[in-house]
């Protein structure tokens, strides 16, 4: 079996963090890949909720968009967009929000709006979508992002979606519960330190050095007292992930 790529490791590590039976509001892309991998491995009863209104979707292939027919056909129920946000997310029924972003900062705040100034952006990103309310209202948030010093930055250019804001009890003071419990990257896992809420490295993937991870991060990183090494992907995990991607590829080739 081919050894796993960094992206595969990231996806598998993220999937492991999703508990069986939990309800997960899933962003498109790697979050969707990781959530479906969890469903196909250790968490068969995870409930996947997509912002397109599909609840309990069990796609056999990965959707390219957040509202592919595959999601609707395999869902337990399909509701309107207002309902998915009002009754299901805001109603407090989401255990885990699984998000990506263009930037994440030291206090796990997310930017998917602009690089540069809002009025005169250097890069105009797609924008908020469902993320501000997912990050605010899900009981827990998991963030997946590739390690890169322009992506993991000391302070995001724009807070689209709240992590721990200025750190410490700032999030709680703003009236929010929950908060991100982990940032999973292609190099390791960062978690918020208990009191300061600053992201610190708790786990590194096999073969990744501390220098490497520091170089790929836009602020001076701190490390947990006990940094663990990521358990290597099991054959089951790797096979399930690769078959999922193969099915997806095959289906896209066939369609076009």
């Amino acid at each position, binding site marked *: 079996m081919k050894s796993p790529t960094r992206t595969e490791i990231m996806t598998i590590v993220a999937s492991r963090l999703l508990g069986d039976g939990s309800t997960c509001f899933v962003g*498109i*892309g790697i979050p969707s890949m990781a959530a479906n991998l969890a469903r196909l491995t250790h968490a068969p009863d995870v409930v996947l909720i997509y*912002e*397109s*209104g*599909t609840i309990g979707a069990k796609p056999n292939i990965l*959707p*390219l*968009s*957040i*509202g*592919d*027919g595959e*999601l*609707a056909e395999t869902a337990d129920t*399909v509701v*309107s*967009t*207002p309902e998915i*946000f*009002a009754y299901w*997310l*805001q109603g407090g029924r989401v255990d885990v929000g699984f998000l990506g972003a263009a930037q994440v900062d030291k206090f796990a*705040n997310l930017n998917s*709006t602009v690089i540069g100034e*809002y*009025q005169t*952006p*250097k*890069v*105009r*990103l*797609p*924008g*908020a*979508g*469902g*993320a*501000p*309310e997912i990050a*605010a*209202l899900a009981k827990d948030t998991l963030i997946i992002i590739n390690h890169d010093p322009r992506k993991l930055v000391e302070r995001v250019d*724009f*807070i*689209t*979606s*709240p992590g721990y*804001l200025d750190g410490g009890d700032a*999030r709680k003071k*703003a*009236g*929010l519960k929950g908060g991100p419990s982990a940032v999973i990257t292609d190099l390791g896992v960062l978690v918020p330190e208990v009191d300061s809420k600053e992201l610190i490295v708790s786990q590194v993937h096999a073969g990744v050095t501390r220098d490497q991870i520091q170089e790929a991060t836009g602020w001076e990183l701190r490390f947990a007292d006990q940094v663990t090494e990521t358990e290597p992907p099991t054959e089951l995990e790797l096979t399930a992930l690769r078959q999922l991607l193969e099915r997806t590829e095959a289906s*896209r080739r066939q*369609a*076009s």
Partner: protein
Amino acid sequence: MSTSSISLAEAIRLHVSDGDSVALEGFTHLIPFAAGHEIIRQRRRDLTLVRLTPDLICDQLIGMGCAKKLVFSWGGHPGVGSLHRFRDAVEKAWPAPLEIDERSHAAMSAAYVAGAAGLPMAVLRGFVGSDLPNHNANIRFIECPFTQEKLAATPAINPDVAIIHAQKADRQGNVLLWGIVGVQKEIALAATRCIVTVEEIVDKLEAPPNACVLPAWTIDAICEVPGGAFPSYAHGYYERDNAAYLAWDAVSKSREQFTAWMDQHVLGTENFAEFRHQLAS
């Protein structure tokens, strides 16, 4: 109380004027591409486009200079990345400056609900800790008179025109859609006028109980446009054309290539059927 069907060109001529606010909805599903093209063909100007996910359809309208403003919550190319024409307008004011009213999906969908429900605003638990309220006066905070909690408020959206694509209408003009129904019922009811393109017009709707049905009297124009959601999909009729979506990235990257493509395929065709025929060949 029946709405008889007319051509899409006629519907756009009658119901969409320069300067109108126009909501085109469909959450990845049933996106009214045919209607968007017809607006481009008829060279409407100064529109306020309203759409949660202004993807390819808005990229085309913006790039062709139809829009002066965009009300939106996520302006990306789903599963691919950037919308180049949208970015070019926001970052470099090409072909014209584009004013934006940017909210979130939760806020925009609640604003449509408020619009359909005759309320001036929507209330939600939203935007706490986000920088968006600092840049958009359409996001404010109010206090609950019972619990004193701080809640976000955003104005209702009541577009001049709503345009949606649905699977079916019957001969009386009652409309049925199913699958991912998005915010279509809400915008149809929130708007002053409503245009619906459908895959087919049938004798009997045969809607299942509690399906998403819009009675004929809520609709101003019904147009039979088979395939009118291409390259998005119509559940039960055809699938999303992922290849066409992926191809858009290259088509839209440069102003020149975009303009040439639109000239040839949209302005250079009489209607959506001809567009699809030309594209296929």
